[in-house]
């Protein structure tokens, strides 16, 4: 992160001078006012306005660079498509050896997503939800989880016993809960502490 301290007769002047030095525009920076400045008598005894202007590296650029570095070093020449909605960043990976990036039950993909989430939201004012997807994996996984949920719900009903699922990250547990929320004969809850938190289906 680059930053400059600049002074001027007014705060506005100081900011403009700093922006000129950084060669950027006002929406790309964070401005801290150190001294607002005072108008002295006839320009005498006044103090100048002092501001500190920091060039914040764009969160999105930072995230994309991070993901590219990691995929490169994993030896996967992945193409990364980025979509940004209000407070959501979606990284869509595609390429040949994409299976390495997904891992068993998406565990590598989830690890990447979590690390990326940390990098994006670290030292930033704006909070983003981060989703990392590879070759439509999330959509496929959603289908699998919905099937699994319905199958285990039937099992819970027929055996009249609670059925525990394996540990899953929160967004996957949510899919199970949502799938079964309108089911009359069973209820669902989550049990345990992350990273071992899992869904239990109760008849």
């Amino acid at each position, binding site marked *: 992160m680059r930053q400059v301290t600049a002074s001027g007769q007014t705060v506005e002047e100081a900011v403009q001078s700093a922006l000129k030095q950084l060669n950027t525009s006002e929406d790309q920076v964070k401005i801290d006012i150190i001294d607002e400045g005072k108008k002295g008598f006839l320009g005498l005894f006044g103090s100048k306005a002092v501001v500190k202007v920091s060039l914040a590296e764009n969160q999105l650029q930072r995230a994309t660079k991070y993901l590219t*570095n*990691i995929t490169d*070093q994993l030896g996967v020449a992945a193409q990364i498509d980025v979509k940004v909605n209000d407070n959501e960043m979606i990284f869509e990976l595609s390429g040949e050896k994409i299976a390495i990036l997904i891992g068993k039950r998406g*565990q*590598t993909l989830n*690890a990447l997503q*979590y*690390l990326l989430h940390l*990098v994006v939201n*670290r030292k930033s004012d704006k909070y983003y939800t981060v989703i990392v997807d590879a070759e439509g994996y999330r959509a496929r996984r959603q289908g699998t989880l919905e099937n699994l949920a319905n199958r285990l719900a039937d099992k819970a009903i027929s055996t009249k016993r609670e059925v525990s699922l394996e540990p899953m990250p929160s967004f996957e547990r949510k899919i199970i809960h949502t799938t079964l929320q309108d089911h009359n004969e069973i209820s669902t809850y989550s049990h345990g502490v992350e990273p071992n938190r899992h869904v239990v289906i109760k008849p």
Partner: protein
Amino acid sequence: MKALIETIVTPLVDYPEDISVAVNEEEHKVVYHLTVNSDDVGKVIGKNGRIAKAIRTVVYAAGSDTKKRIYLDIM
């Protein structure tokens, strides 16, 4: 592999210059030993080791096509 570990960890810590990765190669396994500034330990381990687990998952994925088993020691 060493570069990968540094790439993953660097943006997570406050003192990137204090990151070091030592490699200890044995007959059937390779152990990477990651050390960071003592103020940054929490940032690479996380609550209940959640960050450490994520780092390991990615590192092990990178080692999936090597013959030796890979371990990552943190601190």
